[in-house]
Every structure is written in C-alpha cells, then in structure tokens.
C-alpha cells in the first residue's frame, strides 16, 4: 500500500541564534531552528533540516513558590545566575539558556537596568550557548529594561522577549540596532499572532529573526487549545502563509511547574518527587507534536526525558 504524502508549497523560515567569534560574538555554539517543509517529524513528506532544541530557564530571583523539586535540583547554584547557567549547560547539556529577569518586576524587587545588565553579562560570560532574555512582563518596565540588556548583549544574536500586539516597537528597535531576534507573543489567537508578526516585519524585522510564542498552557490547563493554534499556524504556513511561517517556542517549565499537579503533596496523585517532572515532560512532548522548535524547560530529569524523546523521533531521519 502506498504511503499518502501531503505536498506542502512553503517552508518555515530558519532562525539562527548565537554569534560565534568570527561573527562578532562570544558564543561557542549556535543553534538553528525552523526551515522545515513538513509537519512535525513527518520527514517523509518534506525536509526537516533542524531538530527541536531544549533551553533551560534560570531566574535572577528565586520565585517565592518555586517547587521543592526545582529548588533541590539547583540549590547549590541558584544564588548565582552564572553558576546556575553553567550547571545547566555542563551537567544537563542545555542547548540554550533562557534568562527571566523576574527581579525587575515592580512587585518582585523592582530592580533597575543596572541589575539586569549585570545578570545578563554574568550569564554571557559563564556559558557559550545562545541566550534568550525576557523581562518581567510589565510593559512600561520592560521598555526600560530590554534596551539596556539588548545593548549589553550586543552582537551575541540573542532572542529577546516578548513583543506584544500593543507593545512591540521598542523591542524591535533593539533587535534591529543590536542584532538580536524577537519573540512575538499572542494570547492563543492565530490572527493576533499573525498581526504581531506583520507589524514587526513591517517595522523592518525580517522573518528569520522572529519566533512565535502563542502563549501555551500546561497539560490540563488548556494545552489542547494551544496545540490546535500551533498546528493551525503550521498548516497555514506550509500552505503559503509566510508571515505565520516562523519557528515557535513554548515556556514549558514555567507553565507546568505552576500547576497543582506538580506541587500538591496529595499522594493519591502519585509520588510528588516524580509528578512535577512527568507533568513537565508530558507537556513538552505534546508541544513537540504541535510544532515547538524551542522548549524552555526547568527540571533536569524532564530535560533528559525529552532529549531522548526528540532523539527517538528524529533517528533515521
């Protein structure tokens, strides 16, 4: 029986992050995502030149309700972002590091640009992998912080986040001046996702410097909705809609470790020790199928599991 093969007319754009020495940066490795001409892992239908990558997330301030499992995994390094990043890369083979500048949030310390720049510089000096930098999510504050960290990381080809429908001009400006890429965020709405990409692209940011974050929930918290948005975006992109044809990322760790399933001591749900890890891994695995190109994760064990999953899904391809 013949295999039925879908024929797609368009491919997803390719985004490269991290600049090596001869490219003006200080990274020792780069990552390239996107470029596929087929739906996830269906390489018999179209070329899939790049595998999904795993980034690990670090914070410049430990969130108050950080689950025990995560605290335990990194208790020895969490006080120093540089050490934390290095542990993620050296011990757990993270392909990227994602820094969340939580301390700049008005309610979490309201730290200013100097602190943010210090953190980013610390991480840049501590690891050689490409870096993702996101602010606190408070628009007015981020518009002050992002330009300073963008400048501090100039030339490294980082991924800055996030651009919103009503607030993208500053971050796009930074990306253009300092040679970075931008995460375009949308509230689980495929049209708004496209609109954000159009506005950024119209402002001069090329499609090979845009990555979409469709706002994803964890398993049990709207994952199906996010999944369907991502799948529809991919299908539209492969059918010709280039503006939607950019790589996607998911903040798997942040979302899944927030859940009560990851934190509740109610042992009827299974041993707490492994539950959060499984929740994060299951969430990540689903998003791999939806088309995530970058998974931003927390726990080393989940990372290990997903790395194996990606390996199995992409072997012989």
């Amino acid at each position, binding site marked *: 029986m013949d295999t039925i093969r879908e024929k797609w007319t368009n491919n997803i754009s390719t985004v490269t992050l991290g600049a090596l020495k001869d490219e003006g940066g200080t990274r020792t490795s780069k990552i390239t995502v996107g470029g596929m001409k087929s739906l996830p892992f269906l390489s018999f239908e179209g070329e899939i030149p790049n595998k999904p990558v795993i980034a690990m997330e670090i914070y410049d301030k430990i969130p108050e309700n950080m689950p025990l499992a995560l605290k335990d995994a990194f208790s020895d390094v969490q006080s120093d972002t540089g050490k934390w990043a290095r542990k993620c890369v050296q011990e757990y083979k993270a392909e990227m590091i994602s820094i969340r500048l939580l301390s700049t949030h008005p309610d979490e310390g309201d730290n200013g640009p100097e602190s943010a720049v210090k953190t980013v510089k610390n991480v840049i000096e501590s690891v050689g992998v490409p870096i993702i930098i996101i602010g606190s999510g408070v628009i007015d504050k981020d518009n002050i912080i992002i330009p300073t960290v963008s400048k501090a990381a100039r030339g490294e080809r980082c991924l800055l986040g996030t651009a919103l429908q009503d607030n993208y001009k500053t971050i796009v400006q930074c990306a253009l001046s300092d040679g970075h890429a931008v995460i375009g965020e949308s509230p689980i*709405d495929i*049209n708004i996702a*496209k609109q954000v990409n*159009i506005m950024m692209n119209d402002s001069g940011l090329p499609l090979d410097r845009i990555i979409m974050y469709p706002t994803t929930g964890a398993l049990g918290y709207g994952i199906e909705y996010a999944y369907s948005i991502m799948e529809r975006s991919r299908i539209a992109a492969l059918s010709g809609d280039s503006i939607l044809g950019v790589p996607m990322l998911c903040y798997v760790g942040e979302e899944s470790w927030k859940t009560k399933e990851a934190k509740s001591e109610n042992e009827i749900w299974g041993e707490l020790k492994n539950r959060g890890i499984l929740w994060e891994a299951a969430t990540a695995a689903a998003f791999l199928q939806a088309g995530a190109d970058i998974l931003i994760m927390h726990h080393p064990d989940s990372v290990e599991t997903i790395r194996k999953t990606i390996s199995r899904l992409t072997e012989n391809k």
Partner: protein
Amino acid sequence: MEKHKVIFYPYEKKVLAENGETIFHAALRAGLYLNSICGGTGTCKKCIVTLKKGSVIIHSRAGEVTEKIETGPGKNEIDVFACQTGIKSDLIVEIPDAAHPDDTIIMIDDLLEKDDSEKLTEPITRKHLLKLSAPTIHDNASDLRRIYRALKPKYQDDPINTPLTIIHEIPYILRDSSWNVTATVAQNKGFYELIRLEGRDRTESNYGLAVDIGTTTIATVLLDLGSGKTLSKRASYNPQIALGEDIITRIMIARETEDLARLKTSVKSCVNELIMDMSVTSGIDFNDISAAVFSGNTTMIHLFLGIHPENIRIEPYVPVVNSYPFIKAEEAGMHINPEGYLICLPCISSFVGADITAGIMSCGIDNSESISILMDIGTNGEVVLGCREWIMCCSCSAGPAFEGGGIDDGMRAGKGAIQSISIDTFSGRIQITTIGDMEPKGICGSGLIEIIAELLIKKIVDRAGKINADIMPERTRTGENGIEFIICFKGEKGSKKDIKLSEADIANVIRAKGALYAGTDLLLKKAGIKFENVDKFYISGGFGCSININHAITIGLLPEIPPDKFEFVGNSSLSGAKMVLLSSKNLSKAEKIANNATNIELSNEPDFMNDYTSTLFLPHTHIERFPNVAKILGIMTNQ
C-alpha cells in the same frame, strides 16, 4: 406643581416645563430633538445647550445634584448638558448648531425605483365605481348583496367581508347618491374587505402610505394607488432616540409598561405628523389614505405595536411574532381612513426584521437565478446572501460607528459633515469637502471611510490602525483617548473646533467594518461559496448612497470584487413597503421570503470569533484577499 416657561432659540419654540424637568425633555416636548447618543445618561456630551437666562439644577453622573445655577443679564451664560440639567425657573435656552440634528440628510430615495407606476399591478386597496340599479319588487336583493353582485366581475368567488361600521352607512350612501357609489376594497390575508363606501365617483382618490420605521430615522412615502405615482415623501428622526439611542437600550426601557407605551406613542405621533404634513402638501384628505404598509426592524415593529420586546435581547433571542396580523387604523391610532389596514411586513428573526424582508424583495434577490448579497450598513448591520432557491441572513451588530456614534467628532450625515479628504504629506496640506459645503462640524460615516483609507494609503495609519506620529507631526498629538490626528484645526476652513480622529475612534470603525465583513464572510463559508460567485452586491442603509466603494474596499469593509458588482439601493426597506402597496401579490411574496430565509446566529458560530479577529486589521489580516489594496499599500502578497 410649579411650571416654568422655557423658550428655545433660535427656533423661538416655547414650552411649559415642570419644575425639575430636564431641558432635554422639555425640548423634546417642544418638538426639538436634541442630538443624543447615550439616551440621556450624560455620557455622550452631544446635547450641550447654552443657558442665557434662568436658574437650573445640574445632576452629576453619579446622581448627586450640584447647587442651583443662576444666569441672566450681567452674568455669564453657561453651557450645560441638556439631559443633566433640571429647570428651576423660567428659562431662555439657545441651541447651538451642533446639538440640533435638523440639517441631517435623511435617506428616503430608493434608487432602484425609476418609475413608480411601472410596478402597479394589483394595489393593496382598490376603488371601484359601481353603477347599481335600484331595488325593485322583482329584484329585492339586500343593499350589501347588490354591492357584492356589482363587484363580482372583479372578485369572482373570492369572499368579501364588510365590517359593521360600513354596513351602518350603506343604506344612506346608496340612496343619497342615487345608487352610484365608489367601493374601496382592501386585501387582507385570504379575503377581501369592503372598507369604505362613498357616494359618486371617487375612484381618483385612493392613496396608500409606505413607512419605514428605522432605529434612527422614520421615512414615509405617499402613493397614489390609482396611478402608482409618488405624491410626497417625508422623513424625520425617530423620536425614540431621546429615550435610547440603540435597540437594546429601548428594549430595556420598555420593561416598564408606561415606558413601552411612551415608546409606542412617540413613533405613532411622529408618523401621524408626517401623514398630516404630506396630506396638506399634496392637497388630499387623509381619509382617502386607505392602507399603510410598515417596514422596520423587528424591535421597531414590536415597539410600534406595543408588543413586549424583552425576549428579543435575551438568549435565545426570540421575538413574540414574525408575521403580524393586519390592524385597523382606528385601533392603531393612525391618521388614515379608520377602516384602512395597517400592514406590518413580516420579520425574519429577532435581529433581521421586516426592513430586510422588504430589502430582499425590492432588490429581487428572491427572484434571481444568480447569487446576490445585500448589506445594510447601519448599527444592526444585517447581511443577506441568496438567490431564488435559498436565502441566508445574519445580523452583524456593527455598532453605531458608521452613523457617527462612539466617535468623538462623529456626526450623522448632515450639513458640515466631512465627507472627503485628500492629504499631501509633503506639503502638509489637507483638503476636505463637507456636505452642504459648510464649515466642518464633524465626521460622518462615509467621511470616516474616506479619512481612514487616505490615512492608511499615506502611511499615517498602519495596518493595525495605529497612528504614526512621524509622518505629519504637526497634526499629531496625544489627547484624552490616546494619539489623535487633527483633520481640521479650529479656525481652519471656518471650523469652530479641532476636528480629530483618535486611535480609539479608528479602532471603533475597524470593529464595525470587521463585524460586517466577518458576517458576510461567514455566510459565504456556510453556503460553501466564494465572493467571486456573487453576482450582485447591494448596499442599503441611510448611509448607503454616499460611500466611496474603492475606499470601503481599501479599509476592508467591502470585499475586493469588481466595483461594477456593487449597487446602492438607498432605503430598500421603504421600496419593499411600496412594492406591497402597489401589488398585493408582494405581500405573500414577503411572507414566503420571511418564512424561508435562514437566520444564522453569529454568536452561535464557533468560527465567527476567529474570523472576526482576523478582520481587525486594515484591510484584513490575510492581505491575499485584497491583492489590489496590497499593491496600493506596497505590500508583498505570498500568492
């Protein structure tokens, strides 16, 4: 109860007001409809009047009352919101131009009709001259039988009824006029009725009235049912506006029985005044008006007939009735022949009313082999898609943006409304034209389309509707509602104030045009057809005569199809009502249309929200649907 004399200038209208009555209400009773969008809650700021003499009490929006304010000679005049100001003494009030909507263009032309008399086949009432033979001992049939016998050649075996009131008059009329009489026979549902008997030949004097009760304007036409010709046209604002700008507000007000009565009475009085006016002007006796056909949206008809409308606005949105019984004019209190019938055309659903049934019929959609669209660009924004075999419709709830509502410097189409614009970004010059060539007062719906299209083409506004302050910085500033672009400065071209368009205003228009486009798109999707399969795109609405098609396409209100497919049909609600007057067959046609049309409830459609979001971009998120516009805007399309 203390009463105060209030005089309104410049109209010199006088009225006696109750102590504490609002200036707005007093003006209404004096026959002056002040501009209001919020229905008297003090939010729209459009009803500003100048107090020249007298004392008043001012209510704040929170319900508190501020102290009494006195003004007069020697003291400064003050400007107040008419709806928030209570009368406390004799008053002299001046109504500035902006508050009085008298000069508005009211759409009563129906552009499809070229020669009215063409459509006259079997009018809804007919007058017949009967030369009867007097009874004899050999032919002693009853008076009524004699009349029916004479009518038989025209009506064959169709039953004719006669009401008691007419029966009472028959013996006198027959004998006083030597058995030469004129019988007026009216059509009802399934039978005929002898509604009038007059002595001698009065066959030349048979008139009919068609009325469109719009949410905003009431339009009427007086027809000669003998020739089919139009004798007179009139239009006026629907006085219900003072009680509530939109349908939902009026439905909520109608919860109280006395308020439902008030809503009913205000329309009734308004129509009666128009009838008297037209009768006088045409030199006819209103008793010769033997039928009146009414069209309007479902809520308007419900309120007009005093039918409880509450369930229209509550899910699952159910009107009490769609197909109305005929009502005697006397019962309805209409100033036409008391035995004449008021015929309300059938409605399709709670939000797609008789006006659309009438529109479908007058555009001939139900007769056509090929597929047509009818879009009514107004607050309710109804859209019809269909042909002879099937008809679908929906109400897009576009909102009042295209009628100036919710737009800071918006106004209804009238003298002084900016209707076209041309911007030269190099020299910084803006050229505008206004309706009536007067000094600019505001922006009307068609002007909004023109302005936003021009701003988009000149890149002053981006596709998300945001203003780029860099292009013409001298005309861009941050105001109360965010960034705004000044179309016309105070003093420019005689304008009395800055006329501007803010990002919030633009967002309002985008939402309105988006709703209309998305509703149309969804109907097509449900029918499984594309825009290119549509043969004719009819546009109706009080606004429908003066929009620029190309610019409407540029902003994504209308789809990009060949411009010659569009046709303006003006007030198609009124045309449809006329059709029923001129040919009674059209009544059953209307019933059939209303019965067969499938109403799509957009709020129930899972795809609608998604499709709607994609329209919130200029012209659309998916620019491939607008390849020409993409070219004009310099955008690369993928396909």
